[in-house]
């Protein structure tokens, strides 16, 4: 399902020409906060999305991501701060004058209008001429691969097609910023993966600043230039997908993005970019371990670090590569297609540890059997120190 390059680059050129050719579309949330009665939905937050970038607001339901999006759209008014696009304060503008595009969670297509009327709606409200509307709708239909569906009604097309109509409808007015509210949530898994790439590809080609709200970490990691992980109304960590995944700063972020194995202890001493940690409780027979750190850690301060499942190395013997080993009991190994996920019980930890083994590594006889003993280790750089000062 490729998207026509000619059509989208036409539109990209059109956008640039309309904007006078300068890079535009900075979306800024400046110290924006919102409370509903006693409940603080969004603590004062500042956020900047660069022109043409896609930023995801990622978090569980109730974390404030949807409220933030709605404040950008104009459906909620911030209690403090302002929403700005290219420096222009939007506070005094109602939603219909902000020149934004938005795709809603359930698409919210107009049931009484057919596909082309749905797409044309924004232009019709702007009182454009019929000829111009007709042509731009046709371009849009091509762009989202729905040529021929123009007379159908929303209830006559599939979920994936509805989503594309919603997208076309949002983009036809050349908005400065695109807002996406869990756009792929209603689709089934296969379709979702395809659409992630399509959506991202389209967004890139049109070079449109985009804010995406989702609870699906895979979606956020796949599609974004930047990810802002939120919980309880605060942004806990902001960074590129790689940063946020490989180097989470808090327990919540570590747990929310993928699986992680958590270790706790106290700092013994730190020297340069390494910190020696005393594990408490000791894990699988391991008392001390060395963890990389970017800051100086005072002795005695509480420590937490995580190791991703794919970074755990299993060996049958206690060969102590990396200088240490943790004794573990294999609970079960499940085949997941391209890898095995293994649950391991380790003394000193209530939760089982999780390890991923590539299918090639562990194929056939080498796959650990349930009940067998194994030894875990990891390269020192695989451990990620968490910032315990940040509240989850």
């Amino acid at each position, binding site marked *: 399902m490729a998207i026509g390059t000619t059509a989208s680059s036409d539109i990209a050129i059109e956008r640039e020409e309309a904007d006078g050719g300068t890079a535009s579309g900075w979306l800024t949330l400046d110290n924006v906060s919102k409370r509903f009665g006693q409940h603080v939905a969004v603590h004062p937050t500042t956020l900047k999305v660069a022109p043409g970038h896609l930023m995801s607001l990622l978090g569980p339901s109730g974390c404030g991501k949807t409220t933030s999006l709605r404040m950008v759209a104009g459906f909620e008014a911030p209690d403090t701060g302002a929403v700005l696009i290219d420096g222009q304060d939007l506070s*005094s503008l*109602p*939603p219909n004058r902000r020149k934004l595009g938005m795709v809603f969670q359930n698409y919210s297509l107009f049931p009484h209008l057919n596909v082309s009327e749905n797409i044309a709606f924004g232009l019709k409200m702007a009182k454009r001429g019929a000829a111009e509307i007709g042509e731009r709708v046709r371009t849009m239909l091509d762009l989202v691969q729905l040529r021929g569906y123009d007379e159908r009604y929303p209830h006559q097309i599939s979920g994936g097609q509805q989503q594309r109509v919603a997208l076309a409808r949002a983009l036809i007015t050349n908005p400065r910023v695109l807002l996406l509210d869990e756009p792929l949530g209603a689709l089934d898994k296969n379709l979702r993966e395809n659409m992630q790439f399509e959506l991202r590809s389209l967004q890139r080609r049109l070079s449109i600043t985009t804010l995406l709200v989702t609870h699906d970490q895979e979606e956020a990691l796949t599609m974004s230039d930047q990810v802002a992980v939120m919980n309880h109304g605060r942004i806990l960590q902001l960074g590129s997908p790689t940063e946020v995944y490989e180097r989470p700063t808090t327990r919540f972020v570590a747990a929310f993005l993928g699986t992680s194995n958590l270790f706790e202890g106290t700092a013994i001493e730190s020297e340069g970019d390494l910190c020696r940690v005393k594990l408490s409780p000791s894990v699988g027979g391991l008392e001390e371990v060395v963890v990389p750190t970017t800051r100086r850690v005072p002795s005695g301060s509480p420590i937490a670090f995580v190791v991703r499942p794919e970074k755990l190395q299993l060996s049958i013997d206690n060969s102590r590569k990396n200088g240490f080993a943790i004794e573990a009991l294999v609970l079960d190994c499940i085949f997941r297609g391209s890898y095995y996920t293994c649950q391991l019980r380790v003394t000193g930890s209530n939760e089982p540890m999780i390890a991923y083994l590539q299918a090639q590594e562990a194929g056939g006889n080498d796959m650990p059997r349930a009940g067998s003993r194994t030894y875990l280790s990891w390269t020192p750089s695989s451990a990620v120190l968490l910032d315990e000062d940040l509240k989850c």
Partner: protein
Amino acid sequence: MLSRSNAARIGFRGAVGFAWVLPSTVFLIAFFVFPLIHNGLKGFTESGEQSAVTSYARLLTEAYYLGTIVQTLVLSLVVTLISLLLGYPIAYYLVRYADKSANLIIFLLIAPLLTSIVMRTFGWKVLFARTGLLNMLLQQIGLTVRPINLMNGYVATVIGLVHVLIPFMVLSISSVLRGIDRRLEESAQILGANKLQTFLLITLPLSVEGILTGSILVFMLTNGAFVSILLLGQGTIHTLPLLIYQQFMVTRDVNFASAMGNILLVFALVCLFAQLRVLRRRN
């Protein structure tokens, strides 16, 4: 921070602002609230025979008028009870057993509302009259030889009122019944209850809200009922609305009629208040 547009500041609650209720609210205040207040205050400035105080004193102390008030309430009670007893099974059937015929039943319930109340009441007169249908049937069957007077005013009025008001009862109850989870009844049956026990112990208590809503509604509507009593009562029934009509047509004693109206209004307000309590309980 200043804003030029209220829409952005207040937040979006749908396309229409709250100010759109103003025309209708002002309209009702002007032509609904004020007239009733005006009616309520009437006569308090006059003294003697015409004064409000005298009117209320008469209404609440003289046997005839007290009797009228009592008759109004009793009639409402009777109609409500009968509507409940007859209407509950219909509502139950509608919700539990009627699948294909549900729409038909609802249509049949609403259909009488499409005809004039005068016409329907006239129909009852025709049924009960000396030369009417029922008499004809009875004679044909051989139960009677001569036409008999079936038009006992009270019975005919009650029948007429039940006929008009029972749809309200059925719809109130059925909407609540519809909300009762079938699985509660099924659980009870699995635990050993028979159909009757299930009904008495599970279904009936859960439908109380519908019973209350419907009953209050029918009670309130009977209080204010007028046409049926006028046409079917044959002068044997005296309720407040009828008395108001007579006061207006015959004696032209406006203050007295107003006072009676106010008492009726108080009853209606009590019913409204009761209905609110029932709704509040649900929430």
